[in-house]
């Protein structure tokens, strides 16, 4: 079997339209350079750099609707999939909180809870937010910004997926049925997760009050084993389903045929995902820095302080989020550029 050279592997990294146009003459040039003793590795590294540039900039790409539509779809996926990949990590680190206050043993939450997750408000008696320091306010607002950005992008993604399904149905391509099914995966994952969470909570809440001692409340009965099983299933569905959804959307972005208006909406969704990631990045940096500078939570008289048990991961989160944000911005700007070319030259008529 013939061994594939490193330069040939690097050449295959170029977009297909590029290889069709320049591949043969590039091979001839490489062969001549190798005969005179130029290192294959240095040639391959140069090719990889240029291949990446060709993918990102799309220079020299023929102006056809098919090629530019593929580029737009891939760019939309590049902008939205990093959001999908990083957002569970963001919520897992910034979401869990414990609230404490010194005044009379009050345990209270922020007045601005904007969260789909029921983790934040405990109050007995109902002494809500007696005093919150400026630092706590800013930390809380950052948290709120993260959750608001998440909700905005989530809604945009849901609308985008609905439009994608409509576009797939309209185009009637040969692979329509398979592509259509794949677009439902994110929604099925979310709905299953929510359903399991509700079932688990209702089983847990079915437990009876059996007494209290030293301020602790004891519950009995219910179905703790089933609730625990549902909890495990919930996270398995969440993690597995989300990963499969990302792979499915990558597949769809490569091979589905879409009308221009769906691409235009997709471009908007990619811009929203990218803006959402930028906002999240800034908010996480503020959130993490303030908590780090505040140090271990010290409860002053009458002051509500939130502690974040997963805060130790914030630097890693900033790093991952930074990479995802850059990818998303690159994808969104590429989607915008490709769509502008399609629109300016009315390529859907060709």
């Amino acid at each position, binding site marked *: 079997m013939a061994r594939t050279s490193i330069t040939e592997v690097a050449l295959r990294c170029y977009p297909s339209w*590029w290889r069709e146009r*320049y591949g*043969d*003459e*590039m*091979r*001839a*040039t*490489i062969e*001549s*350079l190798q005969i005179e003793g130029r290192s294959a590795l*240095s*040639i391959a*590294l*140069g*090719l*990889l*750099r*240029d*291949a990446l*540039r*060709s993918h990102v900039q799309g*220079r*020299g790409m023929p102006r056809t609707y098919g090629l530019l539509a593929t580029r737009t779809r891939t760019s939309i996926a590049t902008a939205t999939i990093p959001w999908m990949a990083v957002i569970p990590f963001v919520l897992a680190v910034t979401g869990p909180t414990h609230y404490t206050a010194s005044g009379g043993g009050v345990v209270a939450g922020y007045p601005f809870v904007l969260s789909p997750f029921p983790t934040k408000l405990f109050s007995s008696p109902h002494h809500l937010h007696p005093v919150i320091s400026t630092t706590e306010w800013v930390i809380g607002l950052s948290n709120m910004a993260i959750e608001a950005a998440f909700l905005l992008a989530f809604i945009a993604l849901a609308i985008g997926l609905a439009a994608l399904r409509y576009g797939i149905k309209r185009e009637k391509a040969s692979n329509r049925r398979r592509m259509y099914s794949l677009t439902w995966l994110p929604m099925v994952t979310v709905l299953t997760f929510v359903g399991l969470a509700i079932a688990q909570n209702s089983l847990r809440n079915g437990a009876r009050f059996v007494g209290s001692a030293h301020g602790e409340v004891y519950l009995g009965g219910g179905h703790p084993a089933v609730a625990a099983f549902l909890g495990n299933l919930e996270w398995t569905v969440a993690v597995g389903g989300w990963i499969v959804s990302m792979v499915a959307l990558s597949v769809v972005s490569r091979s589905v045929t879409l009308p221009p208006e769906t691409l235009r909406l997709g471009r908007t969704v990619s811009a929203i995902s990218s803006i959402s990631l930028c906002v999240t990045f800034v908010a996480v940096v503020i959130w993490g820095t303030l908590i780090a500078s505040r140090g271990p939570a010290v409860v002053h008289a009458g002051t509500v302080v939130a502690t974040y048990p997963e805060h130790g991961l914030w630097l890693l989160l900033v790093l991952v989020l930074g990479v995802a944000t850059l990818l998303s911005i690159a994808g969104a700007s590429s989607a915008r550029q490709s769509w502008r070319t399609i629109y300016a030259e009315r390529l859907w008529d060709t």
Partner: protein
Amino acid sequence: MASKRLGRTQDPTILVLTSLTGGSKHGYAIIKDIEEMTGTVFGPGTLYGVLVRLEEEGLVEALPSSDRRRPYRITGVGSAVLTERLQTSLKVATIGLRRLGSVN
């Protein structure tokens, strides 16, 4: 070498266009010509990155070829752009060298 501190001061675009002013050439011939002119060693990735851009902007054009080595030639627009750029560079070089006292 002290000049290395300035990094790459020669624009690859100008080098490729200048090479093509001597007549149409294919990729390998352009690389060798630039190497002889300036000592700059181009990889094929860099060369084709420049050629694709120049072709898209209409500054060079590919000629038909019977074998795999496709020659390129500079267009009229390419010649005009190159002339303008070289004149600016010449002006800067002349002023700079005069101020340094290297030429009268």
